[in-house]
């Protein structure tokens, strides 16, 4: 049953079935009108599920929490005693993730687990997570530009299960072995797809391949211009508007920088950090290589579109457009890169 149909009215039953063995996160609209992932049963009920839009907040924090206690310490009789923090043991499912956010999880995996050093705090959380991606039918909103960064509204990379909205049902496809196994557990709620539904699903994929309807776009040639514009006065002009807040980085599904501090009560804590903050590059020596706002802003764009591409072969931007939607100063990453000079 790697390809099947889940009727929309059966989504609740299917999620409840999945919830027996796993913690399930679903997108819901919170009190303040933001769509974000919340734990089913505890913070959210199936009736509130919101699958018809791109969530305002990416699911990043489920694998990489904003605040994470690495270990606790205290002094006992002249000696320092350490206490580990025990990770959550249960399997997790994130349901209704958009393809851009799913690819972002693969990007994060590479950062935290892909090299010589494996981040065990990330790994232990990540390995418990299965991702049910819902394909987009073209751009999910006016800020989307995933085709410009190598993504696609129907991209399957990083997914365990793919869902396609084919009208009154979802066309469901197991991608990874784990996803296929999870679908077996849901089989009571699944049906065989009709030829018409097959056709609809193919139509969604065909439409996505043409990348039509995307108002925002970054041309590959403008990205190449980054090679020679590091010292351009352009960055001062762009940075003039920037307020140096961390909104763009905190809502970015691929921004992964963190800081580690010892805090009161004897805890070593890892928290998200932002390259837009002035202390981000502060050295122990008190030298700071990026004191100016323009240097910090430039670094973010270079990291996303050049450094990362040069070292890992892929962009560190998935084209979700959240930084465009949320920037208090109205900075638009697609415009900034397109107008590089």
């Amino acid at each position, binding site marked *: 049953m790697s390809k099947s149909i889940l009727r929309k009215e059966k989504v609740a039953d299917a999620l409840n079935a999945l919830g027996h063995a796993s913690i399930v996160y679903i997108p819901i609209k919170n009190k*303040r009108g933001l769509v974000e992932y919340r734990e089913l049963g505890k913070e959210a009920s199936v009736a509130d599920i919101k699958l018809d839009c791109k969530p305002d907040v990416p699911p990043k924090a489920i694998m990489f929490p904003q*605040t994470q206690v690495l270990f606790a310490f205290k002094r006992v009789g002249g000696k320092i005693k350490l206490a580990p923090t025990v990770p959550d043991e249960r399997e997790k499912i994130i349901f209704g993730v958009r393809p851009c956010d799913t690819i972002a999880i693969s990007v994060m995996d590479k950062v935290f687990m892909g090299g010589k050093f494996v981040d065990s705090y990330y790994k232990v959380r990540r390995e418990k997570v299965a991702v049910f991606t819902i394909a987009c039918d073209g751009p999910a909103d006016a800020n989307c530009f995933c085709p410009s960064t190598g993504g696609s509204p129907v991209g399957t990379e990083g997914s365990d299960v793919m869902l396609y909205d084919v009208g009154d049902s979802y066309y469901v496809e197991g991608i990874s072995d784990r996803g296929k196994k999870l679908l077996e557990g849901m089989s009571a709620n699944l049906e065989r797809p009709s030829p018409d539904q097959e056709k609809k699903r193919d139509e969604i994929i065909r439409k996505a391949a043409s990348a039509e309807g995307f108002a925002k776009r970054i041309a590959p040639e403008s990205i190449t211009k980054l090679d020679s514009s590091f010292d351009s006065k352009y960055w001062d002009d762009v940075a003039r508007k920037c307020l140096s807040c961390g*909104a763009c980085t*905190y809502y970015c599904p691929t921004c992964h920088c963190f800081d580690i501090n010892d805090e009161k009560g004897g805890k070593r804590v890892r928290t998200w950090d932002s390259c837009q903050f002035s202390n981000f590059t502060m050295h122990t020596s008190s030298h700071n290589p990026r004191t100016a706002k323009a240097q910090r802003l430039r670094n973010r764009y270079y990291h996303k579109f050049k450094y990362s591409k040069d070292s890992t072969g892929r962009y560190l931007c998935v084209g979700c457009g959240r930084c465009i939607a949320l920037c*208090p100063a*109205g900075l638009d990453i697609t415009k900034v890169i397109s107008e590089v000079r």
Partner: protein
Amino acid sequence: MSDEKIREEAKKALRERGLKCVIGWSADGTPFFAETEEDADKLSFNEHCANNLVTYLTQEVRSQRGKTRDGKDKIVKPVGIVVRGCDSKALRLLLNENILSRSEVFIIGVPCTGVVDKRAGDVLYRKCVKCAMRNPVVYDVLASDQVPEDEKDYSEVEAIENMSPEERWTFWEEIFADCIRCHACKRSCPVCYCDECLLDPTDVAIRPDTTADEKAHRPRWVERSVNVRENLVYHLARMPHLAGRCVDCGECERVCPQRLPLRLLTAKLEKDVKKIFNYEAACEDGQKPLIAMSKMEDENEFIM
């Protein structure tokens, strides 16, 4: 109509007053810095122009200050700005606090009937529905005719005042739990102009000669951890620092990516300052700061 006037005045001032630039909005509502007369043709004011630009004004003036090699003060080119009523009050506060001097700024005022929230589907911002500061209070020229203003509306604040302490605690706890401390509220605030903030552990002023010891022992009023407790300290400790200074322009609430109702705090602050000290921030030119004055009739039970 006001667009033409803004452009005309901006051009004239760039030409005759030797301005560094005029800070305004472009037609799409984003901040725009016009440095030449040609740029000035892109200036605009419409219902999408939501940013309070005064934060940028401080940045543009301050970045020019300093000493020349022979120890003289650098020449500061005046900076032009387009302001609405609420922005102009914040600007007046900066003038009153001697952060900016009147000769350093050229002000084009635009009376405003409200701006809209793009994220919420182009509806008026809450602060704009009933607004008591639609007309600029300090300006060199006005770009259009003045508009009628409303009485200040404190009904939302009163609703919270009427809650029981437990209800109120739960109400705020939920709000602070959702804060991610991106610091957009503080960084966009026109009257938060300090180089260093005791509530912001991401922006500690460190000079090349700051010793490791000084850094290790810096006071940590707020930890980097993002949780209800730390977030609450961050938001509540900001408020006394804004007492008699915050003009309730609503920029903090506008920029909040989590859509936290931060104006409930600033409006309450303004209301209390009026009630307790009979003082209103930036209500006149040359006004003494609240923190610098004491009156016999001030309430002082908590001290005596």
